């Protein structure tokens, strides 16, 4: 059974249709990369899956349970999904440790000592063990984003949603975040990531989906979608990326 199934998703903002009958299936331990121009619906899709946006049509299933049903408790669903944002969104008034332990303690009811031990272990693994007491504004962008990923991981999610997590970073800091995502894949984490890093998508993704006009126009193994695209619009998009020197 797939971890995530999206069928016929539709989302409108005013008279602008952002998702237009989008289908997507993500199997366990698989990494799906969403590519496409700005405004193609990548971020909106991720926000809809995490129930941060209300759907205008379609069905989303998480482990076979329909989470797009309005009777479902969204707070309970979100505990099973980790989300990382482009602009990190760490809580500026909390230390790195408190950022990470907030949800385990308040949502999962774990004891402070227990949650902190887990957080320290995760931070050590991403090489930020010395930053537990630091406030987010003392960290570099790459460090902040790694803390944000650890914060999502501390909930032990079934599924991670990564929304252009390297787009706000200086080029020399992108590598450290991508290395962490690579480790997550090695651990078997199921992930959906919206990205502009074509090289990274090719390397880490099991499947690449090209979104255009709110639909998946082309999907398949990275080598096929990025190497021998069949759809003219995919080819056009990749040509622009190559011209911009991003592939």
């Amino acid at each position, binding site marked *: 059974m797939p971890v995530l199934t999206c069928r016929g998703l539709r989302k409108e903002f005013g008279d602008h249709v952002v998702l237009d009958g989008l289908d997507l299936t993500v199997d366990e331990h698989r990494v799906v990369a969403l590519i496409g121009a700005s405004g193609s619906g990548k971020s909106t899709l991720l926000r809809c899956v995490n129930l*941060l946006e209300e759907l205008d049509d379609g069905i989303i299933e998480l482990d076979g349970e329909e989470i797009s049903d309005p009777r479902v408790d969204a707070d309970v669903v979100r505990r099973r999904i980790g989300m990382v944002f482009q*602009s990190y*969104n760490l*809580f500026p008034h909390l230390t790195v440790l408190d950022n990470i332990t907030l949800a385990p303690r308040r949502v999962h009811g774990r004891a402070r000592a227990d949650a902190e031990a887990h957080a320290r272990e995760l931070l050590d693994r991403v090489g930020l063990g010395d930053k537990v007491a630091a406030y987010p*504004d003392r960290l570099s962008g790459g460090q902040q984003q790694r803390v944000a990923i650890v914060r999502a991981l501390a909930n032990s999610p079934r599924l991670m949603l990564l929304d252009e997590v390297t787009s706000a970073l200086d080029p020399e800091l992108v590598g450290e975040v991508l290395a962490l995502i690579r480790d997550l894949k090695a651990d078997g984490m199921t992930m959906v990531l919206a990205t502009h890093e074509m090289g990274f998508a090719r390397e880490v993704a099991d499947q690449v989906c090209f979104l255009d006009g709110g639909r998946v126009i082309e999907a398949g193994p990275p080598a096929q979608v990025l190497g021998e695209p069949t759809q003219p619009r995919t080819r056009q998009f990749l040509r622009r990326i190559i011209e911009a020197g991003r592939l």
Partner: protein
Amino acid sequence: MSLLHHTPSTAQRRRAAYRRRQTIRSVLVAAASTAVLGTLLVLAVTGAPGWDRVRESFLDPAIARDALPTVLTGLWLNVRLLVCCAAGALLLGLVIALLRTLRGPVFFPVRALAAGYTYTFRGLPLIIVLYLLTLGVPGLRLQGMPPVLVLGGLALVLTYGGYLAEVFRAGIESVHPSQLAAARSLGLTYRQTMRHVVLPQAVRRVAPPLLNDVVALQKDVGLVSLAGPIDAVRAAQIATAQTFNYTPYIVAGVLFVLLAIPLIAVTDWVTLRSARRQSGG
């Protein structure tokens, strides 16, 4: 670190020497202009034709000494009222601001009541609220009526609660929606998000304007004397009526300023700190 071993170049030494000379010059100019302005002010006031009369009726040391104890007793009432009313108004303001953020149709009447409250009590002059509570309410002759002082304090809490509620609300709305999205994405409920993510940031951000309103409250608590209790200004007024000399007012004024200085200093310190923090430290 490497600067420790750095020998400044001739150009840098020349610049440093020039800056030192400029600093000394600036200090001398500031001292001279302050002295000139001060002298002119003193000459203008003491040289005025009515200065001797004014000094007698406003700055009489003997009368000041006599009035000080009663004015101080009055001031003690101001201080106690300030502490209680500030705590009450801050709590009320926070509760009202939170009620206004509640969503869902069930809470419509609560939201409407909270909005109506802030509109009414920010619009209503404090003196009218005071008269209504201290003169109107006891007129009902209900059992267990609290003393006038409590009713007057309540009027202050109601009026200032309205202002503070709006300050809190501005703070809550200033927290970026991405912070809410991050908190909700972790599975925190709306209430937990408010309690652990939004409110701590909001209160830090609006601490300076909140404290500023407390400084204003400090002067307004004296208005309860309209209903009978004797505060510092009322005590000064009584002393003035006995001696036909205005010096007690000056005594009360000086005491108020002395009382406000620590609070204002704290406000400035908090403002400075939050400005530094927002600029990324």
